[in-house]
């Protein structure tokens, strides 16, 4: 059975979620800078995510989930995922307990960075996801894994996937992601039609 692996931020969601969370601390410009540097590959994802996590952990988890619950999704892609739940997986470097409200709306499985709750019920970052390893895991049970994403940290995912689609619905896919992709689309409807064909 073929499987579809979707990046979350800026692919399924209409915005990058971490800068949105940082608004809560009045640090959205700083977070956007870090996010832009990461998306374009100027700083490694792991380091950047650790820094972003250290900033955002100051927001109560309950509040983070409220904000995440209000994040706008690309409705066409979300509908596609809901209709093909068993075949779709979210593959994101974002943190498991933060993205829960979004995953609940989509109803599919996910690979994400993981956390554990400490004694005060605050999440502690445990392991940052390697997106390439997630695709390798999916390939164990599927002979055709199709990856959809747009940023620098999607490159390892594209390299491991059987077919890769660079999706520029929110922002233009980075050149590195385009250069290892098979197809490029900029419209949610066109993406879903393409996924049906693959």
């Amino acid at each position, binding site marked *: 059975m073929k499987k579809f692996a979707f990046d979350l931020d800026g692919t399924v969601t209409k915005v990058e979620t971490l800068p949105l969370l940082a608004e809560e601390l009045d640090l959205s410009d700083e977070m956007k800078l870090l996010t832009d540097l990461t998306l374009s590959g100027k700083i490694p994802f792991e380091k950047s995510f650790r820094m972003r996590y250290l900033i955002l952990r100051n927001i109560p988890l309950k509040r983070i989930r409220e904000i995440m619950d209000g994040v706008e999704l690309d409705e066409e892609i979300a509908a596609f995922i809901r209709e093909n739940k068993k075949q779709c997986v979210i593959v994101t470097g974002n943190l498991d307990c933060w993205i829960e409200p979004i995953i609940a709306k989509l109803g599919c499985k996910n690979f994400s960075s993981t956390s554990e709750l400490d004694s005060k019920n605050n999440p502690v970052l445990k392991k940052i996801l390697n997106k390439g390893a997630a695709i390798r895991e999916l390939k164990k049970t599927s002979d055709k894994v199709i990856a959809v994403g747009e940023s620098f940290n999607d490159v390892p995912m594209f390299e491991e996937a059987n077919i890769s689609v660079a999706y520029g619905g929110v922002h233009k896919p980075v050149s590195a992601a385009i250069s290892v992709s*098979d*197809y490029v689309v900029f*419209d949610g409807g066109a993406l879903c039609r393409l996924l049906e064909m693959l």
Partner: protein
Amino acid sequence: MQTVRNVVIAAAGMGTRLGVGKPKPLIKIRNKTILEYQLSLLENVENIFLVVGFMEEKVMSFAKKIRRDIIFVRNANFQHTKTLGSFYMAAKIIDGAAIFMDGDMVIEPNSFAEFLETAAKIDDEKLLIAVSERISGDPVYCDVEPSGQALMIRGFSYEKKSAYEWANVVYMPAGLMINGNTHTFEHLEKFLPASSAIIDRLEIDTPEDLRDAENFFKATDWFGTN
């Protein structure tokens, strides 16, 4: 009503004979690019596949402004493939039939609309090969003869002159495309005789073609823009 659902445009080439340092679909004639003229003919077609290679990001960022839902197919090996190879990269994911066309010509809208109508009516397993009575500088002639109301094409030739040339547009089952490195017409020869339809178009292969096209559109108003 039946309609043509898929159109594949080959836009990966380097256009070396023209030598303007940009992909041919982005060349302007009378202030409009070849790609804009082509997409204006395809507004009712659901899936547009644009095969990109040479300067792909430039082609994509321009094309998506004209039509956002284009599906771009990357031919990373564009320096070593011909149009047929580009067509195949899109054809391999298409279920059913598609129009396959070159991205380096301006097509007269009425003749293309008729081609679309005829294509929509023909049997899904059959081909409809476009020919043109406007003979270009480097023609592949077509042996065409009337068959009832329709035209049938029986062969292609560089040498054997005729009133028709291969117009680089064909409607055919996508499953019949192959990953070959021959000219597209050489592959189509396997499926002859086939139905044929006349379209009018200007091919832009050389600097002279481009200059002639500029002059042509000063006098002839195919797109109602004069």
